């Protein structure tokens, strides 16, 4: 509170104080809405996974079914593996993009930002459909390849197609944290290294890169966690072999009405997501403490 003394009456100060209290209370209706239409349903889902079991089976029957079935485990592993691949791809593309954004000036900086944010503004179904048009066997890519005399490739339905489609959507979630971390780096540190005779590549790898790592990790964890929940992209660009956990959960309900199985799997997905988020937050915080070096 920095009230300019002398210019405000005590009454106004009291009113401002009361307003501050009321203002915090504004969050209550939102919390109630969330409790009713988001948290309560999720709690019911977790409960269903434990209670919606075949007669005579224990509470863990649905979870045991999930973890004992090799087909399920294959999909679970494939989900994690896809998320990892998308994360690596995103970080590798995002790092130079963020650096280009840092270097660019004025309108160029805004243009790069606008392009990077494009996926936020465009429909996911439309974007995936565009990849179908490009990557299908008689698509744009093979048409262009034929023009230069290269044999057609079959990408639609493979993990490459899924990775490309997902990475395109998730790129901004990697670029923005990396850019934010780069922006905070004190340029004098790099300058000092250069003035002390370090070659540019050495100054980059020993000073700039470590200092930007907090952003890299923050972005990587975010992309990884968001990848785990993808449904539309693997369904549109992948094949049956590319099935991910969200599709399996959806099918259990939509086709089999297996509420117990679906709820148990959704709980596993929820716990995996939250676990990785917490691990990511802890790691990023440790890194930030250990590295420091940001602008005063």
């Amino acid at each position: 509170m920095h009230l300019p003394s002398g210019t405000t009456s005590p009454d106004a100060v009291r009113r401002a104080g009361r307003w501050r209290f009321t203002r915090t209370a504004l969050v209550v209706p939102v919390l109630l809405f969330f409790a009713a239409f988001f948290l309560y349903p999720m709690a019911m889902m977790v409960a269903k996974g434990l209670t919606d079991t075949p007669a005579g089976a224990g509470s863990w029957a649905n979870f045991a079914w999930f973890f004992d079935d090799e087909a399920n485990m294959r999909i679970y592993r494939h989900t994690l593996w896809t998320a990892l691949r998308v994360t690596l791809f995103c970080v590798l593309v995002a790092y130079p993009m963020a650096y280009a954004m840092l270097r660019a000036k004025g309108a160029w900086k805004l243009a790069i930002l606008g392009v990077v944010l494009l996926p936020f503004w465009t429909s996911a179904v439309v974007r995936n459909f565009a990849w179908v048009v490009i990557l299908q066997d008689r698509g744009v890519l093979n048409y262009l390849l034929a023009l230069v005399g290269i044999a057609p490739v079959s990408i639609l339905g493979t993990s490459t197609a899924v990775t490309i489609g997902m990475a395109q959507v998730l790129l901004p979630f990697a670029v923005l944290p990396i850019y934010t971390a780069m922006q905070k780096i004190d340029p004098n540190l790099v300058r000092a290294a250069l003035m002390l005779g370090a070659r540019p590549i050495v100054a980059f790898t020993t000073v700039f890169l470590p200092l930007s790592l907090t952003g890299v990790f923050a972005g990587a964890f975010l992309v990884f966690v968001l990848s785990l929940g993808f449904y539309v992209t693997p369904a549109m660009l992948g094949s049956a072999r590319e099935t991910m956990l969200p599709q399996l959960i959806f099918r259990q309900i939509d086709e089999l009405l297996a509420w117990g199985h679906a709820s148990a799997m959704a709980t596993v997905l929820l716990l995996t997501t939250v676990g990785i988020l917490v691990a990511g937050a802890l790691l990023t915080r440790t890194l930030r403490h250990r590295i420091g070096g940001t602008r005063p």
Partner: protein
Amino acid sequence: METQRAFPQQFARRSGAIALYGFAGLVAFSLIAPLLIIIPMSFSGADSFAFPPRGLSARWYVNLFTSESWTRGMLQSFGIASVVTVLSVVLGTLAALGLSRLKGIPQATLSGLLMSPMILPAVVSGVGVYAVFLKWHLTASYLGFVLAHTALATPFVLTTVAAALKGFDRTLEYAAASCGATPVATFFHVTLPLIRPGLASGALFAFIASFDEVVIASFLGGPELKTLPVQMFTSVYVDSDPTLAAVSTVIIAVTSLAIFAIMRSNQARSVGGSH
């Protein structure tokens, strides 16, 4: 500021800079080009997505605006997304105002909680929402869609408005209060005009979050209630109907116009504000 500007020149020489911007341009191209490809496809005379499109026709647009299932899907999605936008703008702004006065752990906990729909898989909350809404008789109903989508869309408004409030001079509110303005008057005459750019982009994000949602919409939908993205999703799966390219082109055009309008109005405001 000046030191920051001097900084980038340090690492690389000219060749490095060319490589960097070349790479950025390539990535930008791969983000934009796929969307532009759809536009010629939508005017194709052929009955498939095959490239290059053969012939020129507007029949997919005719189909889009005359087929009952497509027009109904568009209207339903538009209606639901509009109501969701209004509700989540109100809820998200309330939450951002409330959270802006909190600090430390309570603030982090509450905002983490309210942001969670943005990060958690939609299928996770979707299973729960479907189960609960079946009990409450909210499936295959507009109300059910609106409630479920508002929970997903509110965090988008919360983030953008919270960001707008961060760069906001609080003494302006104290000044209004000391001049005798009620909190409500202060909000509408002082706070709201200043956070309007954040509010506008939050509203657009909220609209898209609902308009584009597939998973929960597939759970909650019924034979009479099938939103546009679900329709599109099943259409690409089941048949290669080029009407899909026409819908996509319409969506791209409308979203671009909305973004353009919001940017224009924000720009006009910031110019007007400096006078």
